[in-house]
């Protein structure tokens, strides 16, 4: 187990009103796995500190605010190695931290949530996009900051339908998470009036992602794989496992755009996002971490900022009071998305606009204009209240 403790930064620098009392200490834990998943594209290869780097920036932001309120935030990081018990690690981390930001796969997140249930620790899901964590398997002590697969798929579908690219060729990877993403994409197609003209499975036959003569081979494989398709407007790929999607753009048999896991990608954040004051956070992030900010960084930043937002309002670091405040209907947080983000009270999922990015630019932001909703247009993305299977206890 690897442990880091980042102590509040930049506290003594500034002349501020002197507080007689000791500052309120607010401990935030970060629980994730050691090592990173390999990506097809070398430029997309995540850094070792993917996620935690965002939390670290938010802790710094919270401490800048905290110096005016006599609050001090700390961040403690725990990285699990293969085979280590997540429940035990979560329980240990909760000793000093009333809040834990987690980047864990669905099953492990549930184990951590159940281990923390009686301890009053608030768990923030920053990494898992699984819909079931917000539906049948929802937990009352978990706040979901990461968007769901269905939110991402709906965001993409709204744009493709707006663009009149309604005939989709769906290509799905052979791993479980690819299939889950494909489920969300099928649901989105049905909701917004797109038609999946054909589905194909791309079998993962193993092999290395880095090879010396890779391009030559891929250039032959991908056109063959995509030939003889019925007429379609856009190829939508579901490949969370990073096996094939990034090989598709410019290599399809028919000249068609690619979306989903490559090409036009729905995401909570991108290094190219510069609207709504986002340039400020991008600059701060680069200054602190010497690299660009990813979606996981942003999800962790938002989780830590939600904690800071609550503690500044209620002037307390007590996890129970913070959690109650976060669940209030008037709670909102600003996260450079052009509007306030709020929690869905039925499953504690953060409502948020979804960016559609091409790797260089933000192409669009969903919800798209014209997709209306009686409560919040953000609820046109993902599973809505009437459909939910979540029962919070």
């Amino acid at each position, binding site marked *: 187990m690897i442990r880091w403790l980042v102590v509040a930064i930049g506290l003594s620098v500034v002349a501020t009103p002197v507080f007689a009392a000791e500052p309120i200490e607010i401990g935030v834990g970060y629980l994730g796995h050691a090592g990173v998943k390999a990506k097809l594209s070398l430029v997309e290869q995540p850094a070792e500190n993917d996620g935690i780097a965002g939390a670290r920036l938010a802790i710094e932001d919270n401490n*800048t605010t905290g110096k*005016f309120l006599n609050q001090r935030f700390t961040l403690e990081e725990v990285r699990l190695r293969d085979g280590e018990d997540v429940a035990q690690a979560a329980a240990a981390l909760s000793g000093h931290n009333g809040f834990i930001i987690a980047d864990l796969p669905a099953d492990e997140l549930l184990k951590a949530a159940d281990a923390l249930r009686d301890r009053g620790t608030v768990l923030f899901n920053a990494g898992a996009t699984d819909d079931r964590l917000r539906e049948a398997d929802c937990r009352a002590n978990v706040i979901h900051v990461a968007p769901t697969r269905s939110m991402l798929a709906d965001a993409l579908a709204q744009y493709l339908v707006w663009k009149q690219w309604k005939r989709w060729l769906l290509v799905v990877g052979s791993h479980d998470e690819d299939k889950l993403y494909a489920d969300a994409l099928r649901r989105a197609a049905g909701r917004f009036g797109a038609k999946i003209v054909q589905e194909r499975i791309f079998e993962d036959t193993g092999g290395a992602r880095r090879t010396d003569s890779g391009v030559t081979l891929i250039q032959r494989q991908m056109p063959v794989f995509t030939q003889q398709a019925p007429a379609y407007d856009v190829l939508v790929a579901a490949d969370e496992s990073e096996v094939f999607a990034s090989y598709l753009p410019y290599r399809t048999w028919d000249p068609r755009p690619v979306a989903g896991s490559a090409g036009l990608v729905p995401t909570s954040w991108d290094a190219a996002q510069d609207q709504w004051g986002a340039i400020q*956070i991008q600059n701060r992030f680069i200054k602190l971490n010497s690299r660009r900010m990813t979606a996981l960084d942003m999800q962790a930043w938002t989780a830590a900022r939600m904690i800071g937002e609550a503690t500044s309002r209620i002037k307390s670091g007590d996890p129970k009071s913070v959690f109650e405040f976060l669940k209030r209907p008037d709670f909102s947080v600003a996260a450079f998305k052009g509007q306030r983000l709020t929690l869905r009270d039925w499953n504690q999922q953060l409502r948020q606009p979804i960016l559609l990015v091409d790797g260089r630019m933000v192409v669009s932001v969903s919800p798209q204009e014209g997709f209306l909703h009686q409560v919040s*247009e953000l609820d046109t993305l993902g599973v809505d209240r009437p459909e939910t299977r979540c029962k919070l206890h």
Partner: protein
Amino acid sequence: MWRHGLLFGVAAWLVTITPASAFLAYVSNEKSNTVSVIDTNSWTVIKTIKVGQRPRGIEFTKDGKLVLVAVGDDDKIEVIDVATGQVVDSLPSGPDPELFTQDAAGKILYVANENDNTVTVIDLEKRVRLGDIQVGVEPEGMAISPDGKILINTSETTNMAHFIDTTTREVVANVLVDARPRFAEFKRDGSELWVSSEIGGTVSVIDPAKHVVTGKITFSVPGLRSEAIQPVGISMTKDGKTAFIALGPANRVAVVDAARHTVLKYLLVGQRVWHMAFTPEEKYLLVTNGVSNDVSVIDVAAQKVIKSIQVGELPWGITIAQP
């Protein structure tokens, strides 16, 4: 080429025949990197001035001779000479200056630097930097109390109005407001400070002596989702009776009873309305519409939008010389 020549020709002609009652409004165009000059007699753009990268905050100096414009991506404030209509100098701010305010004498300039959590103090006569004041995350809104003793800065991610003593240049109080506070405005009698919260969707009314929020102005437009109501610019009439509040992507300006803190009316303007400025006699209020690239003219007494004027791309700030 001939177009430019014609434009300048018209400009020169207008300057000579413009009656004394006409005023000039300077509008910063965030995307075009220009400043449009509007003649309030003809309601036309009579000149377009090239400035640095990403011009936003813009204000006349107190003597009316210069226009200062924060060019955020060039990390400085440019100085436009009103007589020649050209950039003649620049002031040293911190990184990414956005909004600023001057003391009553027009000698000291206070600048919010979004990028490094500071307010920079600049001597306007010597044009040198006097120092920095540490504030919260992403400083933006700036205002100075009518008695000149207190400087207000709002920080967008810290969500506070910081009260700074102008003599000691130290933060003496902090007041929490709703999310993403963008603009601060005092009533002329100093009795109230108003701070707009763009993401929170409210305007906080603060007692500047007690440093507490005493009320909140809220907005609701039928048929419009509440997330789209994002208050930004605020202007109040000199008598302190009426306020106008720009509501961003709600595409409306709220007319507010400044004593009761209630909305009287919503005026439909252009898209993503940002900031505003009165003509000196308060007959008209000009507001910038970021997305529709125009300026709406509001007849203050009638509370009606009477005109819109096309300017550059993404107009943001606006200033009119006050005699």
